[in-house]
């Protein structure tokens, strides 16, 4: 009797689901990921990254672009850097994904499903520059510990979502709110479920800006897994670590958020300038807010050999954290003389700006093209490394490419 029931169930019910399950599973398998998981995972295939991207770390995943890969006006996924602090969440269940608002400064705790967020609030799309606070770390002397980013931990994609401000208004805030901190579904490298790999945030004024989004799309599609699928915070112009991925919670705080990597020396620089290598006490370190002015020459790729007498058209992008870029100049004589580039206005606030110039080289030889951007408050990129800091953040020294004219 029992056996008969089992067989009947097996034939009628499980048959379809068995087949169905196998096919669905096959659909979701990342390309190049074997069934037994014993093959070496190829992060370039797994995350749809271009093979010229540079892998810095495979646990957690960290990958950066090269300057010439960032030539697109809008950065596509294949050229977007990955900076992870923990393990990517497994078995993401979009149907049951939710975002909970809590903390000292909410009038009451409130939870939204992903669908509610998408349908209840007006959608906005902005192109937003995200740069890792440690971009350029590899150049500091004495060296700073951490992933040794060169220049490629920056991107400017189109993000679609709802304004954090609109959702906060719906939640209802108390007057004493000063900071928001995010919570996410990535897991700690040590496997400790009580530890958050990262839980950073922004001052309430930044949270209230038009461009600060709870995003669910990147470049018109679902956010790729490595970049926070299905939901993330986007706070352009701030260190990208403020834009939490795999977002599941936001705490509205009545004090500066004290989550993982908000305290101590993480994403902080000395409040006052220090000599290279100097010891700095934790209480003398200040949280990084706006990123500094910076630019990248994205065409041509460094190493170009030109024929004498031909002009070279360079192009690239410049950005200035919370500010706008007012000028970009170039030099081919190691900074002795500077010429203006043509500079476009940003598509929207906090988007990078494109620059171009046509260069004629006076004679044969080895040249370096240097680019220098100046922000709307008159601050320009330094040609040498900026002020040393213990964790190697905020290197905005001018970008250089090598050229030969023969």
């Amino acid at each position: 009797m029992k056996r008969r029931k089992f067989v009947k169930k097996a034939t009628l019910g499980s048959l379809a689901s068995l087949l169905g399950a196998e096919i669905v599973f096959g659909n979701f398998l990342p390309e190049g990921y074997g069934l037994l998981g014993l093959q070496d995972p190829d992060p370039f295939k797994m995350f749809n990254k271009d093979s010229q991207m540079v892998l810095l770390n495979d646990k957690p995943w960290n990958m950066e672009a090269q300057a010439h890969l960032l030539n697109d006006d809008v950065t596509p996924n294949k050229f977007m850097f990955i900076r992870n602090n923990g393990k990517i969440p497994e078995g993401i269940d979009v149907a049951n994904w939710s975002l909970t608002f809590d903390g000292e400064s909410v009038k009451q705790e409130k939870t939204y499903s992903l669908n509610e967020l998408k349908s209840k609030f007006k959608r906005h799309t902005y192109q937003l520059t995200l740069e890792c606070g440690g971009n350029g770390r590899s150049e500091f002397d004495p060296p700073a510990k951490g992933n040794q980013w060169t220049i490629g931990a920056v991107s400017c994609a189109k993000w679609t979502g709802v304004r954090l401000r609109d959702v906060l208004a719906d939640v209802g805030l108390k007057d004493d709110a000063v900071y928001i901190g995010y919570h996410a579904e990535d897991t700690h490298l040590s496997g400790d479920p009580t530890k958050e790999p990262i839980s950073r945030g922004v001052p309430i004024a930044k949270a209230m800006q038009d461009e600060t989004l709870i995003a669910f799309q990147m470049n018109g599609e679902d956010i790729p897994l490595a970049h926070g699928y299905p939901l993330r915070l986007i706070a352009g112009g701030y260190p990208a670590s403020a834009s939490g991925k795999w977002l599941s919670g936001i705490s509205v705080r009545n004090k500066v958020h004290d989550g993982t990597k908000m305290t101590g020396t993480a994403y902080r620089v000395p409040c006052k300038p220090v000599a290279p290598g100097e010891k700095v006490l934790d209480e003398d370190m200040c949280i990084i807010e706006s990123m500094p002015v910076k630019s990248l020459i994205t065409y041509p790729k460094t190493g170009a050999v030109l024929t004498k007498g031909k002009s070279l058209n360079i192009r690239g992008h410049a950005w200035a954290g919370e500010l706008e870029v007012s000028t970009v100049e170039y030099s081919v004589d190691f900074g002795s003389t500077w010429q203006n580039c043509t500079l476009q206005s940003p598509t929207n606030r906090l988007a990078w700006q494109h620059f171009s110039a046509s260069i004629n080289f006076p004679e044969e030889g080895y040249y370096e093209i240097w680019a220098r951007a100046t922000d709307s408050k008159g601050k320009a990129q330094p040609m040498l490394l900026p002020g040393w800091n213990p964790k190697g953040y905020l290197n905005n020294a001018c970008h250089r490419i090598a050229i030969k004219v023969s």
Partner: protein
Amino acid sequence: MDNSEKVREIAKKLYRLMLSIFILFGIIAAMLIYLMADPTLSAFKSDDSVEGYVTVPEKNQIDPSNQDFDKIENGVHVRTGFVEGEGLMLVVNNCTNCHSAKLVTQNRMSKERWLATIRWMQETQNLWDLGNNEETIVSYLAEHYAPVQKGRRQNLANIEWYELEK
């Protein structure tokens, strides 16, 4: 009459049951054969659905029973990229459980700062007490991954020259 009807009924049921079982096993067998031929189920995947939303392995997995597991080639421990030296295996066994070896090998620190990094990991990242091995580990790191003076700006290096067509 009742009996023969019943027998016929039972026979019919039995026939259907056997047929179902036969079909079920047939399908399972077909699927298994297909899996042998195409273990990644590539035929069911469309070209653009390559984003993996299921499980993302964080680390290369190599079978520890493989004899090449701890192979050293040209002075480098192949599996991790660590250079050969006294304390190598202690470093491999203690410093690659949570994070990648790449996080170590891309960094350069003095003995004092390597030790400070270990203390930080013990205080905040659940690193265990290294006991008597600590001195060997720190010495290995300080010797093989020591800082190099870079000055305020280095020359552009590793340039791959190419003709720019235009």
